[in-house]
């Protein structure tokens, strides 16, 4: 069963991912059906339990670990990491803390719920943030994906509206030092021989900002796979991504988003445990660059999930 839809802001993306996953699985002979994560899900799982579930849900439902917990309750295996690892990766501040403890570079940050701003006074807190982290800054929801609610802040006057925009998506904001460089994504898959990095994908948005429109409007972004990096730098990027996947205790597949700074050093920006699978998503592009068939990858991951049951 492919789970897609849900009520998160990324419903539309999820439906497209789910459709792509379904088609890819069917193409390699796997019998699969798509299902929404709504009130009809549990009765459906009970009436006709699938051998395994592929979670193509994005946003909280698919990535905060809770749905994985419910599937555990039902005794139904699923592709991807367990509930605990999912919860940690989903919450960007938690994930960044774990990365830093593991010695994996990630930009300096501060994470604050909106309550703290009202209690302590927004101006004072924002001033401290700018003093400490400097400009430009990246503001994004502590939990969420697809670039929704995220903004680059280059002037301090842009910070308050960016915070309000971010808090419309989540009650906690992650404010991060903005590192200029190349945006890259490393998709990691484990087909049975341990996690391996697929070719690195470099992201070049036409208008300079990789926002929602740039991600999901074909033509607005150019992707280079493999990325245009020196072999040495590429190896270091892949190694960093693998280290991040392992540090968070992930399983089967993930996508690690990084920035390669001008000096060639990679820093991890975030980790996605339910990577997008749409026509313009990064993991399918990486698989294609590696000469791998998405359906075969997914079928192998399904077999591995079933074997875990």
């Amino acid at each position, binding site marked *: 069963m492919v789970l897609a839809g849900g*009520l*998160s*802001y*990324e*419903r*539309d*993306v999820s*439906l497209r991912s789910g459709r792509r996953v379904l088609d890819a699985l069917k193409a390699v002979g796997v019998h699969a059906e798509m299902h929404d994560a*709504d009130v009809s899900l549990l009765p459906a799982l009970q009436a006709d339990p699938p051998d395994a579930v592929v979670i193509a849900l994005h946003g909280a439902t698919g990535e905060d670990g809770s749905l994985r917990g419910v599937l555990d309750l039902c005794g139904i295996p699923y592709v991807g990491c367990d509930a605990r690892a999912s919860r940690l990766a989903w919450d960007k501040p938690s994930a960044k803390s774990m990365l830093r403890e593991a010695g994996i570079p990630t930009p300096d940050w501060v994470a604050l719920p*909106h309550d703290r*701003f*009202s209690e302590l006074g*927004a*101006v004072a807190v924002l001033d401290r943030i700018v003093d400490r982290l400097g400009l430009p800054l990246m503001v994004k929801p502590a939990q969420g994906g*697809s670039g*929704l*609610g995220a*903004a680059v802040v280059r*002037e301090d*006057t*842009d910070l*308050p*509206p960016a*915070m*309000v*925009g971010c*808090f*419309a*998506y989540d009650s906690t904001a992650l404010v991060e030092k903005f590192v200029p460089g190349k945006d890259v994504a490393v998709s990691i898959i484990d087909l049975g021989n341990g996690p391996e990095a697929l070719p690195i994908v*470099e992201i*070049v948005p036409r208008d300079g900002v990789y*926002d*929602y*429109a740039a991600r*999901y*409007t*074909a*033509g*607005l*972004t*150019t*992707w*280079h*796979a*493999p990325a245009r990096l020196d072999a040495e730098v590429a190896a270091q990027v892949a190694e960093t991504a693998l280290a991040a996947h392992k540090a968070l205790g992930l399983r089967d597949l993930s996508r690690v988003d990084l920035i390669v700074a001008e000096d060639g050093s990679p820093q991890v920006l975030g980790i996605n445990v339910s990577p997008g699978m749409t*026509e*313009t998503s990064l993991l399918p*592009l990486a698989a294609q*660059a590696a000469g791998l068939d998405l359906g075969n990858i997914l079928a192998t991951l399904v077999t591995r999930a079933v074997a875990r049951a």
Partner: protein
Amino acid sequence: MTGTTQDDYTDVYARRVRGMTTSEIRALFAVASRPEVVSLAGGSPYIAALPLDAVGEMLGRLGSDHGTVSLQYGIGQGTVDLRERICEVMALSGIHGASPDDVVVTVGGQQALDLLARLFLDPGDVVLAEGPSYVGALGVFQAAQAQVHHVPMDDEGLIPAALEEAIAAVTRSGRRAKFLYTIPTFQNPAGVTLSEERREQVLDICERAGLLVVEDDPYGMLSFEGDAPLPLRARRREGVFYVSTFSKTFAPGLRVGWILAPHAVREKLVMMSEANVLCPSAFAQAAVTQYLTTMPWREQVKSYREIYRERRDALLTAMRDLMPAGTTWTNPTGGLFVWVTLPEGLDSKAMMPRAIAARVAYVPGTGFYADGTGTGNMRLNFSFSSPERLREGVRRLSGVMEQELAMRAVFGAAAGHPHHRRRGNAAADAPGPDLA
């Protein structure tokens, strides 16, 4: 290897489609279609109120008894039978003496607007339209590479003095305004109606300026308080193109609308429609003709008026009871929509994710302006949801607005003025036609 954009056609697209992108707001509307969400965002009539069994039986007979005609090609202008019925319908609205020869049947009102845009607009021409205006019309004008110049309204509709100023401003800029696009009665999205007195003034101003008038009248029959003022076309035979549809009085799924055009241009419209769609659906035309001939459609319209009046009352009462101080709204006497002005500093587009999280949806005001304004407004629909659901929607929405106000208070006035405002892209900020 070189990079991929996942779109191999980027270099081939026509200029008019550049800038068509998906948007965050469109992503949020994908959630709004779920039953868990109270959607005040759509524009759907309450089709469940139709006598569906009888309509279904009639549609079946159209296939079984008249299939050789109803499933065949038709003529570009539309069937004579339907055009005669359309003239009867218009007579009820006060447009008397229209000839079926001057009626062109279209695929919904939308195709009527598209034909008029193709007929009159060259790239760079200006269209004057109410501000705010119907998003579907803005999309048509954008595709024609025309520029929309919005003219403000108040509670009595389009402001005549502002129209005169707009005409003068366009002339000063060396461009040419070809027509005024107006929805004078129960306007979408504003819900206001152009007053009797102003109707004459607006027509006089346009006549003096040599400006054609495209009168879009989908809602005129849905009056809650007596009859609506006479359409503009009922007052002038020349210079006014009257567009309407059966989408709000019968069924939008059939996609049947029409244009009543001055005699001279009717033939051009027909030829353009043939180039556009060949002919409107023969089956849909036969269905509308049968509906108008054999079923109590006038009673059905009356019943819609009553249902929508009750729902409007429920929505406005809930708003009076629950909306935060500083919120204002229009008081529609017909149609489907209320236009809301938010308290100072609130941004309807920025607030959308919070609303979706609270399981309520609306259309941000930016969906109704070609120039990106409208962040301080939103459109609410009252035709589709039950009075109870409407109240629940307002309850949720009020909570969202209170939270957003609190947030704005914390971050100060500067928070209300985002610096990175994208250029206007009304279609990206409004839902697709399927959203209820």
